[in-house]
């Protein structure tokens, strides 16, 4: 069947092209302005490598630890009806809408040495401030909604009858969660995890207030920009961009594996 392309479809294609250009142009421009030799030099710069390792590990660590609490909570939100559920959902989305420097200030006030969490940390011999754990907390704080929302949608899509059937077959609530709900919502949970991790990698505003040092890559790029100018900062930014894309593609590929629930 021959399908004519109408004016409306052409207009939509034009809009889509503009959007793609808007996203890709700055990134491609940045890459094109970099020289291969200086990129290679930056990629072997121990300070850059150290900061990239720290960024990836703190973001991954924060996402992994928070998942233990957030994923069962997302199931609870998907399955249970209770008074105040809408309010609770709004609270969960709060970190997305507040300015991240504000989030950093808020975190600083609960993680400093005079606060209860700060004093407990000090008792165990460390401080959140200026510590990778503080960085992880800041990253997780701003990126947690991505995990909870995706996981909640995933659990909602699992037919409740499967969980009920498992219960009538003698399975405890915990077994139902781990053997039915979680495997069937795995794809959404993994997508949420990847989104949380990716969002954590790019966090700057909250982290710079909680822990300027040790330096994560976004802070390092900012410091190089203010100290040495655009070209120095750009090389570090391109290297970081390549690492982020590689990690992102890897995790998306792992999470995109089709599961039987979606057949």
């Amino acid at each position, binding site marked *: 069947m021959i399908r004519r392309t109408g004016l409306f479809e052409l207009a939509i294609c034009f809009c889509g092209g503009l959007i793609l250009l808007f996203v890709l142009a700055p990134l491609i421009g940045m890459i094109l302005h970099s020289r291969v030799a200086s990129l290679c030099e930056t990629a072997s710069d121990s300070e850059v490598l150290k900061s990239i390792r720290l960024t990836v590990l703190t973001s991954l660590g924060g996402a992994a630890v928070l998942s233990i609490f957030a994923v069962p909570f997302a199931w609870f939100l998907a399955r249970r009806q209770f008074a105040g559920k809408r309010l609770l959902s709004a609270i969960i989305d709060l970190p997305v809408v507040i300015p991240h420097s504000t989030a950093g200030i808020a975190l600083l006030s609960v993680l400093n040495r005079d606060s209860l969490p700060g004093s407990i940390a000090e008792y165990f011999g460390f401080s959140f401030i200026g510590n990778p754990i503080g960085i992880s907390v800041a990253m997780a704080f701003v990126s947690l909604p991505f995990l909870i929302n995706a996981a909640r949608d995933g659990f909602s899509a699992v037919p409740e009858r499967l969980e009920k*059937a498992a219960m*009538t*077959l003698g399975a405890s609530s915990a077994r139902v969660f781990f053997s039915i709900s979680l495997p069937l919502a795995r794809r959404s949970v993994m997508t949420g995890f990847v989104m949380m991790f990716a969002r954590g990698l790019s966090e700057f505003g909250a982290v710079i207030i909680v822990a300027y040092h040790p330096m994560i890559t976004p802070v390092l790029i900012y410091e190089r920009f203010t100290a040495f100018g655009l070209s120095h900062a750009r090389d570090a930014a391109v290297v970081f961009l390549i690492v982020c894309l590689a990690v992102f593609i890897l995790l998306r590929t792992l999470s995109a594996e089709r599961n*039987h629930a979606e057949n």
Partner: protein
Amino acid sequence: MLKIDGLAVRLGNFELSAASFNVGKGDYFILLGESGAGKTVMLELIAGLIEPDQGKIFLDTFDLSNVPIQKRDLGLVYQDHALFPHMTVRQNIGYSLPDKQKSQVEELAGQVGAESLLDRWPATLSPGESQRVALARTLARRPKVLMLDEPLASLDTPSKAGIRSLLRHINAAGQTIIHVTHDFEEAVALANRVAVIEKGRVVQVGTPEDVFHSPRYQFVASFVGIKNFFRGKTEIQGDSHFFHAGQAVFAVSPCVIGSGSIIFASEAVTLSPDKPHGSARNSFPGTVAEIEPVPNGFEVSVDIGVRIFSLISRVSFEEMGLATGKKVWASFKASAIRFIPDGETS
């Protein structure tokens, strides 16, 4: 064995009201009702998946009110079978079995004719095969009562016959079964006891013979093809008995006085263009409201204040020149009417 005592629940706009019935050991008990009547809710209440607002469930005289779902000794097979899509058939059947008993999976699959399906994924099974697997998975728990939600609804005719035979076989082996359906034929074919549920109320319980020969509700009567069904009450006027059904008053044979239902066959109602002079005590002028061709003639609905149905031959139909809106007389004998007094539902 299983006693349902005054079970009631409100779920949004739906209300299941004070349902009571008993299911004996080895019974094939069919809960018959239209879509939305509350059949699945009843099963989920018994299974413990929904908490009742009032009422109790007893299994072997033991109150199940505070017994968790997992320990109720009841099995439930959903209409859509609810097979776990991320597990093979073998894993599905073995889901409730402890590791030491996983070898029973083959035996269970053999019982339901699913031995060749063990390594397949649920998405690749036909509805009939899925039903067999769901049955095997539930039977693995050796439930005291097996509850089936519309087990034949999604099946084609050959699969239906196979599953029906399998269910009969499982019941014959001593398994108590509660089966909910909207299909009258399933009840006739399988049940030794039937309950009828209508709009959240269990309205009639008995053997299939009791329920279908003496329907107390329009819903049941319509199942067995009785269209002339009216609810009302009998009265004596002089020496005669009459049945008042809204605007219509029917002469009936002597019977108990009180509320109940009357039924009479469409074949018993004759139509004539003029007032008949025969012995029929019930003669009413009316208007032809609807004509429906049926294999052995025409079913004519006549409005006499209420609608009554008459089955007439093609020859009579043509002789009278019947058409919608035509004035006719409908007549039938008092002895053709059967009065069914209201009584206990079980």
